[in-house]
C-alpha cells in the first residue's frame, strides 16, 4: 500500500484561522469535528436527563420530581439520544471525518451539501430543544397516537425538529453513497474497501430509504394536531395502529442506522490490534448488507401486542428471526479474527472486548423479543429497555468510544493518557452492566417501562440500576476530561501509532487540508499486516 509522506506543518486545523473559517468550511474534517462537538453537547443534555430519570427511580413514590416532570425527562432523554445523538454520532461525526480519508479522496462528493446538512441538523435540533423552555413535551420519543394528538405540551415543535433533522440525515446519506461510488482511490476496488466504509455505505442506504418516511409521518402527525385530518385519530375515524406502522417503518431501520457504523468501527479495531486480517472479509461485508436489508421488513415486531393482525404477527416474528443470522456471523467472525493473532491490549481493543461482551447479550435478548410468545410477556417492560440499551449504549456507544480512542491521535496528532483510559474503560463497562442488567430482571418480573412509580418488590433492583448510572456518568466525565486535556497537552503522536494499514493512516496526523498530497494507489486488501 503506497504511503504519501509529505511534511509541512500545515494541517486542517491550522490551515486557516478564525471562527468564520470553521462556520463556513467545506472541509469534511472540520465539518466532522463540528458535528462531533455539537452531538457531544446534546449527549451531555440527554445524559443529564437520563441521570435524573434514574435518580427519580431510586425509590418508589416521589423522589425528586413530579410525575409530569418525570414523563418529560424520559421523553427528552429518548428524543435527544435517538435523533440528536446516536443517529448522527458515528456517521456524521467520525464518518464525515474518516470516510474520504479511508477512500483516499480529497473530500466528500458534495462538500456544500455536507455543510448544509450540518446547519439543517442544528436548526432542527434547536427547534426540538426550544421546547425545554416552553412547556416541554411528554409523549415519549415514539409519539404514539392518540396521546401525542391530545397532549397539551408543545409536541408540535419537537415533531418539526425531527422533520428537519431528518433531512440532514438524508443529505449525509446521499453524500456518502455518491462518495463511495465515485471517489475511491485508484485500485481501491469493492473487495478492498475497509469494512468501516461498507458499514457507512449500508447506513447511508438506510438513511436515504427510511428517513423520508418518518419525515412524512411526523408531518401528518403535525397536521393531525393542527387540523385533525383523521388519519391517525380514532375520534375522527383514524387508526392509531397505522401510525405505529408508519413510525416503525423508519424507526426500526433507524436502529440499524445506529448500530451498523458501530460494527464498522469494531471491524477496524479488532484486525489492527490482532495484527492480522479480518476473518471472512466477504461474509462480514455481506452480513452488514444482510442486516441493512432485513431491517426494512421486520418493523412489526414492535407491534406484537398492538392489535395488529395475527398474520402480520406471524410474518414479522418469522422474518425477525433472520436478523440474528448475519449478526451472529459478524460476532463469530470477530472472535475468529483474534484466533492466532498477536493481540495488543491498547484502549481501543479493550472497548472492542467490552463491545463483544455487551453486544452479544443485547443480540441474544433480541431473540427473546423476536419470539412472539415471549414478546407478549416482555414487551413494554424494562426488559425491552435493558435490551435496546445493551445494543445502543453497550454496542454503539462502546464502539464510538473505541473509535474515538483509535482515531484521536489521527484527528489531533496527540495521545491521551493510556493508563487512565484503560481504567475508565473498565469503570464504564462495569457501570453499564450494573445499570442495565438488573433491568432485564425487572422486566421479566413485570415492571412496565415509563413508570414513574413502582411496587416495593422492585426497589432493590432499581436502586442498583441507579447506582450503576452514576458509575457510567462518572466514566464519561473522566473520558471527556482526559481527551480534551490530550488535545492541548497530550504527547505528540506519530502519523500511524497503531501501525494500521488503511489509507487514513498513510497521511500525517493531523491530516493536511486536502488529505493527500499525492492521490494514493491501493494495491492490496485493507488489513494486510506483515509484522
Amino acid at each position, binding site marked *: 500500500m503506497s504511503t504519501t509522506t509529505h511534511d509541512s506543518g500545515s494541517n486542517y486545523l491550522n490551515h486557516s484561522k478564525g471562527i468564520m473559517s470553521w462556520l463556513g468550511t467545506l472541509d469534511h474534517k472540520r465539518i466532522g469535528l463540528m458535528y462531533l462537538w455539537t452531538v457531544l453537547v446534546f449527549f451531555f443534555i440527554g445524559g443529564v436527563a437520563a441521570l435524573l430519570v434514574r435518580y427519580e427511580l431510586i425509590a418508589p413514590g*416521589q423522589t425528586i420530581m413530579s*410525575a409530569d416532570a418525570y*414523563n418529560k425527562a424520559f421523553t427528552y432523554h429518548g428524543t435527544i439520544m435517538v435523533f440528536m445523538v446516536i443517529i448522527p454520532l458515528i456517521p456524521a461525526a467520525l464518518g464525515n471525518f474518516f470516510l474520504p480519508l479511508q477512500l483516499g479522496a480529497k473530500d466528500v462528493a458534495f462538500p456544500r451539501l455536507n455543510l448544509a446538512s450540518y446547519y439543517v441538523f442544528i436548526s432542527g435540533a434547536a427547534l426540538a430543544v426550544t421546547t425545554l423552555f416552553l412547556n416541554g413535551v411528554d409523549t*415519549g420519543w415514539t409519539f404514539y397516537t*392518540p*396521546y401525542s394528538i391530545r397532549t397539551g405540551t408543545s409536541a408540535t415543535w419537537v415533531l418539526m425538529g425531527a422533520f428537519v433533522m431528518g433531512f440532514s440525515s438524508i443529505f449525509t446519506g446521499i453524500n456518502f453513497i455518491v462518495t463511495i461510488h465515485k471517489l475511491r482511490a485508484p485500485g481501491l476496488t469493492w473487495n478492498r474497501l475497509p469494512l468501516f466504509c461498507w458499514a457507512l455505505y449500508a447506513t447511508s442506504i438506510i438513511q436515504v430509504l427510511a428517513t423520508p418516511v418518518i419525515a412524512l409521518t411526523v408531518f401528518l402527525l403535525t397536521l393531525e394536531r393542527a387540523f385533525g385530518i383523521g388519519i391517525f385519530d*380514532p*375520534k375522527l375515524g383514524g387508526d*392509531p*395502529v397505522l401510525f405505529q406502522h408508519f413510525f416503525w417503518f423508519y424507526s426500526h431501520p433507524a436502529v440499524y442506522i445506529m448500530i451498523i457504523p458501530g460494527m464498522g468501527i469494531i471491524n477496524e479495531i479488532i484486525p489492527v490490534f*490482532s495484527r*492480522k486480517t479480518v*476473518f*471472512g*472479509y*466477504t*461474509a462480514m461485508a455481506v452480513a452488514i448488507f444482510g442486516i441493512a436489508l432485513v431491517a426494512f421488513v421486520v418493523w412489526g415486531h414492535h407491534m406484537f*401486542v*398492538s392489535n395488529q393482525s*395475527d398474520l402480520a404477527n406471524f410474518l414479522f416474528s*418469522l422474518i425477525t*428471526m*433472520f436478523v*440474528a443470522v448475519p449478526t*451472529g*456471523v459478524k*460476532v*463469530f467472525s470477530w*472472535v*475468529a479474527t*483474534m*484466533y*492466532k*493473532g*498477536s493481540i495488543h491490549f491498547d484502549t481501543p481493543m479493550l472497548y472492542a472486548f467490552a463491545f*463483544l*461482551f455487551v453486544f*452479544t447479550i443485547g443480540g*441474544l435478548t433480541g*431473540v427473546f423479543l*423476536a*419470539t*412472539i*410468545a*415471549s414478546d*407478549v*410477556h416482555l414487551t*413494554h417492560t424494562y426488559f425491552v429497555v435493558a435490551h435496546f440499551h445493551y445494543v445502543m449504549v453497550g454496542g454503539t456507544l462502546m464502539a464510538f468510544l473505541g473509535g474515538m480512542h483509535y482515531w484521536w491521535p489521527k484527528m489531533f496528532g496527540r495521545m491521551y493518557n493510556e493508563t487512565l483510559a484503560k481504567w475508565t474503560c473498565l469503570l464504564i463497562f462495569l457501570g453499564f452492566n450494573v445499570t442495565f442488567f*438488573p433491568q*432485564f*430482571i425487572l422486566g421479566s*418480573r*413485570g415492571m*412496565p*417501562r*415509563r413508570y414513574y412509580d413502582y*411496587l416495593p418488590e422492585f426497589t*432493590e*433492583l432499581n436502586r442498583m440500576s441507579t447506582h450503576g448510572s452514576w458509575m457510567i456518568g462518572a466514566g464519561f466525565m473522566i473520558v471527556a476530561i482526559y481527551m480534551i486535556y490530550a488535545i492541548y497537552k497530550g504527547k505528540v503522536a506519530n502519523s500511524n501509532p497503531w501501525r494500521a494499514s488503511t489509507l487514513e493512516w498513510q497521511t500525517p496526523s493531523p491530516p493536511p487540508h486536502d488529505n493527500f498530497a499525492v492521490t494514493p494507489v491501493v494495491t492490496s486488501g485493507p488489513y494486510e499486516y506483515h*509484522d
Partner: protein
Amino acid sequence: MFFVTEALANNGLPQQGSEYATRFDSLYSFLIWVSIFFFAIVVVGMIVFAIKFRNRPGWKAKNIHGHTLLEIFWTAVPTVLLLAIFGWGWMLYRDLRAFPTDAMEIKVIGKQWLWQFQYDDGRTLTGEVYVPVGKPVKLTMTSDDVLHGFFIPDFRLKRDVVPGMHGSIWFEATQEGKHQVYCTAYCGTAHSGMLASLYVLNEKDWNDWKHGKKINVAPNELPLAFGGSAAPSAAPQGGALSLVDQGKKLSQTKGCVACHSDDGSARVGPSYKGLWGSQVELADGSKVKFDENYVTESLYEPNKRIVKGFQPTMPTFKGQVSSEDINALIAYFKSLK
C-alpha cells in the same frame, strides 16, 4: 445480595397464575439456556484467544483470511435453531388467540387512569376484578381516551387497549388469590398509577361473590405509593369495615388514589388531606366549601367545578358509587385532618 437470588428465582419470572404460564416458562428457560450457551462461546472464546495469542516476544500472528466450511456452519446452525424457536413461540401464541366458546366474558374499559370491568349482569367494578378459578375467562377490552396496555404478569399475558377497537385476551387461572394488573402503554401523568387487582376465587367464594355475599380472600398488597393495603370489597356492597375504612378502601379500589393522595402531596388532583370543611378555590377564582354536596357533585359531575390549578380529567362515577359509598368516602375525608 439476597434480593438478587430472590429475583432470579424461576428465571426471574413472576408466579405462575395459569397453565399457560407454566408452558410459557419452559420456552423462556429454553431461551435462557440457549443464550447462555452462545454467550459462553463468544465470551470464553474471546478471553481464551486474548490470553493465548497475546502479543509477546517470539510470537507472530498468522494471517488467516477465513474458513468457508466454518462460516457455512455458523450460518446454518443458528438459522435452524432460530426457526425452531420461532415455531415454539408461535404455537404458544396460537393458544393465546384461540378463544374457548364457553369463556365467561368480562368487558374491560381503560380510561386515564383507571380500569373498569363490566360483568354481563351489569355489575361494574373499578380497579378490581373477580374471576373463578379453573374456568376460561375472556376479557374484551377497549379504551375511552388514549392507548392503554392490559398486562397480567402472572398469566404472561398482555395486549394494548386501543380506542375505537375491541381487542380480546383470555386465560384460565389456576392460582387462587390476587394477581397484579398493570397499564403498559404510556398514557400520561398517572400511567404508573393505573393498576388493578385481579382476584381468582375458588368455586364457593365465586358463587358467594356473584350473589353479592361478603367474601374474604387474600388482602390487596397495594403499597402506600398506590394507596396502602386494601381488603377486596365483597362487591357490589361493602364489607363489615368501619365507615372510615370502607371509605379508604373505596378510594383505593375505585382508583381515586391514582390521582388523589391522602398525605397532602398533589398528584393529578388535589390531596384529600385537610380538605374537609375548607374553602376550596376554584379555577374561575370563586370559592366553594368542601362539604357533602361538593363531594357528591364532584363524583357525579367531576368537571363542573374544578379546583384551581388542576385539569378537568376526572371521569364521572355516576352509577358506580352508591350513596352508602359516598357516606363512607365522606367519613374517610373527615378523618384526614
